[in-house]
């Protein structure tokens, strides 16, 4: 079953088109990796999936993103509600610095349920930290500041914070790019466990990481030559052409089961990227 369905999605920053015409379906209880060179729009696309893109000044989209068949951008849909169903973990671990580990984990739950009992809160904190494979390391110091943990532990604390609100989907934006190999491995193992319960979408710069953890991989690329070709075509067709020097938007070049994409890419750009010829 498809958890997320992306239809004709264009993402803009003001007038700048960052991602163009993405159509893809993301199956539930699986890991989907977004890969591609810098500036290909993969992080922007990720942020459209929980409406964080519009938190940036000028951020807007056209098209549709549906979660379990419900358009996340439909009229009357509250972005705050969307973000509770689609959680997010960022490149840089961002636990709330003034809060303890315990308070960090239940911060999201406290927003909606202020009167959660001590017992329920304790259970939730333990369950979430166990899901994030962090419980054994921190259970005896839950009241210490979250900012005092190591980088890898902080990132897992952020994952615990995200799963505590019981989302359907967890988005991760290059979650390991600031971590050492051991912490990275811990996160990757965690992702494989998380997909039993959640739909996971991860943006990564690291092709090996995508190959190791993901079930399907999407390759994005902002192809300057193809873009130039297209704008020429549009100009001849009478549409308004774009000003010179406009950066090309990112496009979904190829999307396939991970094994297939890595072993047998159909698109030449995908093959070139995977073999390290650019990016």
């Amino acid at each position, binding site marked *: 079953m498809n958890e997320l369905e992306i239809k004709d999605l264009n993402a803009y920053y003001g007038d700048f088109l960052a991602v163009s015409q993405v159509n893809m379906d993301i199956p539930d209880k699986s890991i989907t990796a977004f890969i591609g060179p810098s500036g290909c729009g993969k992080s922007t696309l990720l942020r459209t999936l*929980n409406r*964080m893109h519009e938190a940036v000044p000028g951020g807007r989209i056209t098209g549709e993103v549906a979660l379990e068949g419900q358009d996340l951008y439909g009229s009357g849909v509250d972005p705050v509600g969307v*973000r509770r169903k689609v959680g*997010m973990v960022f490149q*840089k671990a*961002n636990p*709330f610095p*003034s809060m303890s580990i315990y308070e960090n984990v239940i911060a999201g739950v406290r*927003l*909606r349920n202020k009167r959660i009992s001590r017992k329920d809160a304790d259970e939730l904190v333990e369950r979430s930290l166990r899901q994030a494979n962090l419980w054994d390391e921190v259970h005896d110091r839950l009241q210490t500041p979250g900012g005092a943990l190591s980088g890898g532990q902080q990132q897992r604390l952020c994952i615990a914070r995200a799963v505590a609100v019981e989302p359907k989907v967890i988005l991760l934006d290059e979650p390991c790019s600031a971590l050492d190999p051991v912490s990275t491995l811990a996160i990757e193992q965690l992702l494989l466990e998380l997909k039993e319960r959640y739909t996971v979408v991860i943006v990564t710069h690291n092709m090996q990481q995508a190959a190791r953890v993901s079930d399907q991989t999407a390759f994005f690329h902002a192809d300057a030559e193809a873009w130039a070709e297209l704008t020429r075509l549009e100009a001849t067709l009478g549409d308004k052409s774009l000003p010179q020097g406009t950066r090309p938007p990112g496009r979904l070049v190829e999307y396939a089961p991970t094994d297939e994409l890595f072993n047998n890419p159909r698109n030449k750009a995908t093959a070139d990227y995977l073999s390290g010829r650019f990016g």
Partner: protein
Amino acid sequence: MRSETLTPQRAGAAAAAFSVVAALAAVLGFLLIQGWPALSAGLGELPSHAENMWQLAGPLVFGSVLVAAIAMLFALPVALGTALYLVFYAPKRVATVLGGALDLLAAVPSVVYGLWGIMVLAPALAGPYAWLNENLGWIPFFAGEASATGRTALTAALVLAVMVLPLTASVIRSALALVPEASIEGAYALGATRWETIKLAALPFARRSIVAGSMLGLGRALGETMAVAMVLSPTPFLIGIKLLTSENPNTVAAYLAQTFPESHGIETSALIALGLALFAITCAVNSLARWITREKTK
């Protein structure tokens, strides 16, 4: 690289820095030496026919602290709201215009605030004061007989509140502007509304600066002379918390300004000793602010 040789630039900069300390020492020495005789002064020697220094200083220090504290009570919520609006809610252009207006508010001379207080604010508030007195007179602050002129401790506090608002708001605003974007995004991504994001990520981060901004504002309010001297209609030696009556405690700074021109001899010493007391209070408040902001860099 910093050179160890004594260049003219280095000597000049050092001289400028140490001249600050020298000025401070000179002022402190002046206050101590000149004010000392008043501490042992007796009946008939002190201004306002005070019996001793304590009878003179007590009510004035009380008045200063009372009026300044009430001023902060009004200024802090407005300053916090202003800073939050400028940083988190206002469109960029509105924030620029409002921020400029806030800075201009700080540039208005205090004598102008005094004129405004005495000619506009006080008469305008006489009516509301009468209403407060009639309906909420059971609250000690609003008890007594409401002043017909509006030149009360509360009016003085309100003028002070407007005067310290820019300082307090700009301290809080610069702290809020430094809240890490990562924390803000983290809160949004958890499904926090904007206000919840402010509570979750911004206010805890800026907490110390909010306290420090209040302290700096309090220090300014304690030392303010002109506006209070013009607005307040004081009663000698009064210690009281009825804010709406025409009998009000005076403040140290205002009393100095009013009494100094006609003082001589030991009276002048007494006024200088009062100055020392005020200096001690503002020093304490500023040190407290320093100490609170200092912890933040730990």
